């Protein structure tokens, strides 16, 4: 089966979008030939074909018309899933993305005094692990842990020095009047918090 695509006069990425639609329409092996009117579109189409593993050739005709011909082979034309996994690159087990979210100044519910001691102990123990987390997030009651008078500051600084990203919710600092009391790590927003949490391979909540 062969499909002709006319993308003359179309600006990028329209030629690619039209060609992808035609390949979808093929629904299997076949040939898609796309006409475009500029060299850059040829290059972008060729790039796509190379990434997808399609056969590709291009030719220039008189009058500024280019043809890019893609041959879609048997079997799955989609590249394997692993190749498109960009957000969390895997370099073996050591790189497994661990994110710790601290939402309170205490660990667990029960005695407040005990809860505070437990959280301090948790952060200390975190720094003693073979595999350190990539990021520790602090929000709501947890925001005070990265601020002045926190018992965990020294351990957090040591974690940060070992490359652990420490982020505290800016809205929370503001709410508790702690904005100029932050002692360790950076300030973050909900967009980043959501991104970190949803991008984590393992999310730990003490």
């Amino acid at each position: 089966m062969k499909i002709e695509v006319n993308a003359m006069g179309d600006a990028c990425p329209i030629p690619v979008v039209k060609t992808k639609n035609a390949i979808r329409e093929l629904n299997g092996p076949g040939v898609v030939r796309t006409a475009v009117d500029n060299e850059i579109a040829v290059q972008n189409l060729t790039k796509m074909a190379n990434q997808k593993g399609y056969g590709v050739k291009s030719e220039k005709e008189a009058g500024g018309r280019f043809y890019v011909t893609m041959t879609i082979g048997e079997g799955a034309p989609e590249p394997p899933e692993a190749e498109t996994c960009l957000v969390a690159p895997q370099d073996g087990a050591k790189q497994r993305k661990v994110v710790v979210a601290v939402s309170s100044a205490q660990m667990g519910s029960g005695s407040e005094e005990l809860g505070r001691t437990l959280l301090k102990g948790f952060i200390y123990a975190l720094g003693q692990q073979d595999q350190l987390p990539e990021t520790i997030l602090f929000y709501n009651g947890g925001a005070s842990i990265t601020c002045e008078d926190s018992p965990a500051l020294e351990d957090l600084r040591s974690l940060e020095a070992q490359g652990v990203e420490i982020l505290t919710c800016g809205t929370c600092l503001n709410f508790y009047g702690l904005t100029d009391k932050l002692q360790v790590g950076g300030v973050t927003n909900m967009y980043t918090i959501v991104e970190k949490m949803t991008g984590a391979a393992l999310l730990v909540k003490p």
Partner: protein
Amino acid sequence: MEDKLIFCKGGGCTAKLGAGILSRVLDRLPRGPADENLLVGYDSRDDGAVYRLSDGLACVHTLDFFPPMVDDPYAFGQIAAANALSDIYAMGGAVRTALNIVCFPEAMDLNILGEILRGGAEKVIESGGVLAGGHSIADSDVKYGLSVTGVVDPEKMYRNNGGRPGDCLLLTKRLGVGIICTANRVGEASPEALAAAVQSMTTLNRDAADCCSRYDIHACTDVTGFGFLGHLHEMMDGRLSCRIDWKRVPYFPEAAAYADEFLLTAAAQRNRNHAGPFVRFEGTPFAVEEVLFDPQTSGGLLAALPEADALKLREDLRQRGFPAEIVGEITEKTGVEILVRG
């Protein structure tokens, strides 16, 4: 609705002419007699032109305008203005005056023009400058931007080619806004991704430049139409090399996802054609390559400075909410100008 479709044809810095063809034209321009007070001009690939008025005082001139890259005229005005103002910050200067540059179709709804100009004017006020006038012409397509004049102490001015071996390279904003706007144009971008990109593009580089001013900045530029690697190539100035750790480069994850769908601009491919020969990728995913070539509108600052300063600057910037990261380091010139690896 019809206005909206006409309004956004794909603009921003993706509309920029390629660096390659541009320099072929610029190299042939006649030059008048040299003026020793022109500190930065055509001979440099720097962000703005700098002219010395007296000892300790120079003017920075810059001009930027382009077609809309988003459908919302108010956001477009903010973005175009933030982008134009950015060149002053990239030189280490302060904004003084700005003039509007407008192309607008006579038949189009004037309220749209009002929204564009309102967005732009707000950004000029935020920059601490004064909107002092402008020029408008009737045209088939909408275009908007600013001509901006700033001041700088020539001794404290940032050039884009002053980097030294051992310097860290620090980037203050996420990459990928060009790909996200392109995906949006074909209806493939998520509203969240577009909102995050708009938020980034409307953020002035003023605070970032203010943070930089406290440290020993050897070189600085803003990442715009030539993409991260294109501007990095200019920064290497033919005498330096650098190593980039792509895993540290801040970018919008959606941009990489859309690049994997090949929602690519012509401008990104032009950037690849121009800067690609100077870059070697090792273990870098295709989508990240595309993000690194992606033309940025109102992109962040890219600064070269000593490591100790870079670590402190990164913290300062993060305190102010910037997704700043140290993305690599400058080395002595080697066989490969820009090595990108994981």
